[in-house]
């Protein structure tokens, strides 16, 4: 039933992105979109094809309007352009004291994942929880 839900993963480390995809597909039955291309990402979000986004904070490759963009700014950009409530999970290896509060406040993201993220079922649980919270707004899609 999750197959109709698409999770966007923006992560600049190819292996970590691969782990998210496998975990979400295999343990949650979600569809995944992996991308670091901001215009592609934005088009998918605007078209309402994305149900939830997992964003890495440090993005090595992504650019927007000629400038590098990180997960914080991307989160705000996506929230701004999403046609309906779009839950965002910020995933980062920035794990010093105070990072969580600071990054959540700056990004407007809904929740925060501290790397290493390695338990597929915990990840899926968290994603489902966030999706559930937005389910009412979204209406019955299942």
């Amino acid at each position, binding site marked *: 039933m999750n197959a109709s839900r698409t999770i966007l993963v923006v992560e600049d480390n190819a*292996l970590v992105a691969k782990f998210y995809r496998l975990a979400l597909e295999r343990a949650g039955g979600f569809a995944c979109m992996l991308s670091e291309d901001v215009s592609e990402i934005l088009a998918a979000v605007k078209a309402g094809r994305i149900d939830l986004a997992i964003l890495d904070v440090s993005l090595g490759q992504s650019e927007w309007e000629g400038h590098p963009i990180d997960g914080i700014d991307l989160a705000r950009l996506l929230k701004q352009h999403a046609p309906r409530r779009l839950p965002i999970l910020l995933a980062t290896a920035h794990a010093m004291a105070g990072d969580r509060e600071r990054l959540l406040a700056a990004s407007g993201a809904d929740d925060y994942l501290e790397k290493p993220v390695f338990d597929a079922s915990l990840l899926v649980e968290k994603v489902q929880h966030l999706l559930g919270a937005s389910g009412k707004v979204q209406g019955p899609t299942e």
Partner: protein
Amino acid sequence: METFIQEMKRYLGFHEADEQLLRQLSPRMDKYLPELAERFYSQIPHHPNAFRVFTGGEAQIARLKQTLQHWARGLFNGAYDEAYAEERYQIGYRHVRIGLEQKYVISAMGVVRAYLSECLLLEFPASDERLRYTRSLSRALDLDLNLMCESYMHATLENLRRLNEQLERANQELAHASRVKDEFVAHISHELRTPLNSILGFIKLILDGLGKDRGEEHELLRDAFSSGQHLLSIVNDLLDIARIEAGQMALHIEEVDPRHVLDSTLPLAAVQAASKNLKLRDATLGTALPLVEADEVRFREVLLNLLSNAVKFTAQGLVTVRAGVDNVSGFLRLEVEDTGVGIPAEQRVIVFEKFVQATTDVKGRRYEGTGLGLAISRKLVEMMGGQISLGTGADGRGTLVWFTLPLAGSDSSRKASASKGTSRIRAGQ
């Protein structure tokens, strides 16, 4: 505005009349001055502080006796002006500089005062007259002592101010170093967590039975393994720099064939280069290279590090390795040149500092990595007696890094071994 000496005279009640009295006294006191100098220098050199002044033996004392008489003559000739104040000031400053305490001057002045009082007693048996002279003389000596003490205070304050500035500066440097270290710890934490994510993630997927088939499981294990290797290289960098910092990096210096090092290192770099579609050009092929004095493992580490950097910071083009002998200096010089992002001139020194990465790609972004590679390479090259530096590539783009190693049996290698005091460095032998 009142000058300091004017203020001091007013405070001590030292007037024109006193100066006149002292001038009258002058001709009668002249004959006592040699004895004053004798008395003074029979007592004052025994003062516990005196060793700071008396460093020049008998000749110095003979000179000082003349100076003392000159000063005493001046005392009776009454030129208590700015130049006089300035001279007393300079002496006070000098005393503070050499660490002579104020109590020395006070007790020296006590010796002068006691002897001159004796002289007045001889000259003026009638007490009325003597009292007038004694008072004026006493004021003059007070004035002199006050000037000296004032200069002590000023010089001490100035020293304190200077020390304070130094402390302030040291404090700022410490704060900066601590900030750099904090950022480093945060960055390292980030760098360690990323490969850990893949290692733990892929293994857990397999353990949870989420792999599609044996083939995929195998692929995931390979990914986990390569992440593990990446993690190991970060940990090795950290250990290296910690060891170097603690002075515990043991080098095994011996005669090394650079050809051997190149041949075993370049294939590793070629794999990295190929994965980014970069060309790796070995411009040393066919050149005979002389033996160098080096630690072979560390030599290889430095070369590989420079090559990896070149590949990492180059998006397209090629990486070139060159080697050549500088016969004059007795060093082998190795160069790694790339056509990559380059390092801005103002960052060419700081990239060799530990924890520092030339943070910018073109867009001002930090690259992956610990930022320790060049710091480690510099330390290793220097420990082996060579030098390392970087500049711009030949066509004004990219980066050219070069380092030198002493040729085997050359003066430079002997000097390097001698000057580096390699007993500890060679502890591995």
